[in-house]
């Protein structure tokens, strides 16, 4: 996960630093505001603890072992902003003192491991912890948070690797930095973290949170273990409903501006007009899957007026939100039942 020097081109690593600077500033402000003089060493302890996490190997089936990164664990213990700062410091030390992860890539590594991982993992944990308030439920929520956080971080790392051949290729065809395209980096990185490293992360995060709950460090956990009350989601539901209602803008604006089909979403006929032929693979796979609501419209509505298609658009958006919400709710209920 730690990107070494030489894998990313200047445009990518400089952009990562630029993206990180305001995040570091915000993290420092938030942490300093809530830090009493007695607890100043908390950041240092958390940063040092990330090394300890990496030193704890977990036994896996087949006599192999693995270790976790601990980003979500630290976020649950000290909050995501504190975790972002502590992990950034640990990454800087790893790069400068141990040569683990590049100096030019500190920004990119912090973006992936210190921001994407703790924030996404912590958000998942907070949301699930509300559904399963029992100690076991919270441990499972932490495990799922760890798994989700690591996988998201792996995805953003893969994207950074995968855009290198697009950004930096020499005139003689050489890739100047990481040589693999997105079609290789994303499946490889995401799948291995989804199925292997993510499981170790989940195991270690969940078990540690399970044991931590009975300990005296609950004063630190108290910010994390209560979850968000349902009332606080009201604004989110209203925003989602509003977004669903304005979704037909996606139909009206292109018609108003006489824009063509979105780039890369052409039909076979449009491709034939553009390049003169349809690639064999495309022709073969086209129609492989018949969607229930093709192009977010009801079947046979291709030539219907915009107003009719707008209603179908809104219906599709509401259906999508409902299905995602229901699937997550069912999964949450099942896991909660198991944890009891």
């Amino acid at each position, binding site marked *: 996960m730690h990107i*070494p*020097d*030489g*894998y990313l081109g200047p445009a990518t*690593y400089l952009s990562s630093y630029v993206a990180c600077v305001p995040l570091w500033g915000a993290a*420092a402000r938030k942490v*300093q505001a809530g*830090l*009493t*003089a*007695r*607890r*100043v*060493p908390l950041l*240092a*302890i958390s*940063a*040092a603890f990330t*090394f*300890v996490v990496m*030193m*704890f*190997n*977990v036994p896996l*089936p087949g*006599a192999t*072992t693995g270790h976790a990164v601990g980003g979500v*664990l630290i976020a649950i213990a000290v909050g995501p902003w504190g975790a972002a*700062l502590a992990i950034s*410091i640990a990454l800087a*030390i790893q790069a*400068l*003192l141990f*040569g*683990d992860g*590049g*100096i*030019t890539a500190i920004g990119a590594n912090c973006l992936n491991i210190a921001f994407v991982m703790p924030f996404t993992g912590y958000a998942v944990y907070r949301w699930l912890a509300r559904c399963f308030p029992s100690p076991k439920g919270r441990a499972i929520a932490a495990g799922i948070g760890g798994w989700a956080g690591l996988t998201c971080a792996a995805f953003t790392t893969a994207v950074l690797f995968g855009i290198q051949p697009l950004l930096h290729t*020499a005139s*003689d*065809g*050489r*890739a*100047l*930095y*990481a*040589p*693999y395209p997105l*079609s290789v980096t994303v499946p490889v990185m995401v799948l291995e973290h989804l199925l292997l490293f993510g499981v170790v992360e989940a*195991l*270690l995060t969940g*078990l*540690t*949170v*399970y*044991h*931590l709950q009975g*300990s005296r*460090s609950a004063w*630190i956990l108290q910010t994390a273990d209560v979850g968000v009350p349902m009332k606080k989601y009201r604004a989110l539901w209203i925003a989602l409903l509003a977004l669903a209602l304005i979704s037909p803008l996606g139909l009206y604006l292109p018609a108003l501006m006489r824009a063509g089909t979105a780039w890369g979403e052409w039909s076979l006929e449009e491709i034939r007009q553009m390049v003169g032929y349809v690639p064999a693979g495309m022709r073969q796979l086209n129609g492989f899957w018949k969607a229930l609501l093709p192009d977010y419209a009801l079947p046979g509505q291709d030539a219907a007026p915009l107003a009719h298609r707008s209603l179908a658009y809104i219906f599709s958006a509401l259906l999508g939100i409902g299905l995602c919400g229901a699937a997550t709710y069912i999964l949450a209920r099942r896991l909660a039942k198991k944890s009891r």
Partner: protein
Amino acid sequence: MPIPSREQEFFEMARARRLRPARNGFVDKSLRQLAAFFSDALLREETARRSGLLQRLDPRARLLGTLFFVLSVSLARSIPDLAAHAALVAAVLWLSHVRLREILGAGLLIALVFSTLMALPATLNLVSGGKPLLPLLVRDAAWRLGPYTIPPIVGISREGLLTAATFLLRTLASVAAVLCLALSTPWMDLLRALRFLRLPPLVLQTLGMTVRYLHVLLRQSEEIHLGKKSRALTRRPLIADHMWVGSRMAYAWEKSLRLMEDVGEAMTARGFTGEMRAAPGSRLRAADWGFLAAVAGLCLGAHFI
């Protein structure tokens, strides 16, 4: 008839109950990693005391020189340019009396193996394009593997070799430069040198404290693992080992917090109010400026090869 020892009695009892001997693979691995950390720290102290080129310079000059070098490597585009940078870092290593074995052990070997594994598939025309010079797989026509289209001839191409060479030279030169800095500079000197970069005092203080805590926490982890190793006699179910790892991690965090509170109280007792100030540093000497000018000149020169 000899009287069986207590150890023999135990093994007989374990055999009778069908208990298997303990397999502490994960504990041993953690202990090996911890031991490697402490031995590396000792090695670094030793290499940092030698009277080489880098060791005689101010840590700030070493840090700035390394940062400039790494930036310059990241901007290099041609193979001769990268090779010149690699030669420069090799020369500095030799002049700093850092042996090849030491820098390989400090992390260059891992970087070499990992980067080579990363670079190998890039030598194929499948990834880097170009005409295969050395065909490895020949079929009648292009074929599909999931979403990927595989050309009829898969082999090592010129473009692939150049891509792999560029990638390896860039990565290894950068990693060697950073390890050269780490092996020639004691940790605390390096952290003090970071003040030169005008980092916020909160960050600088936390960096210093982290390095100190690191030793304490890792020593504590070593004791936890040694305790487990010395007490484990028979193999336990995988889930029991998982529970052990989780509980010890929670314990380590608990101990860390206790340490934090103790240190926090000690700092408050000595008048610490939460405000952090950095002490002003001394000026760089002529030799330090000379080193920085030489690094800058050689790096810029390399770009014109």
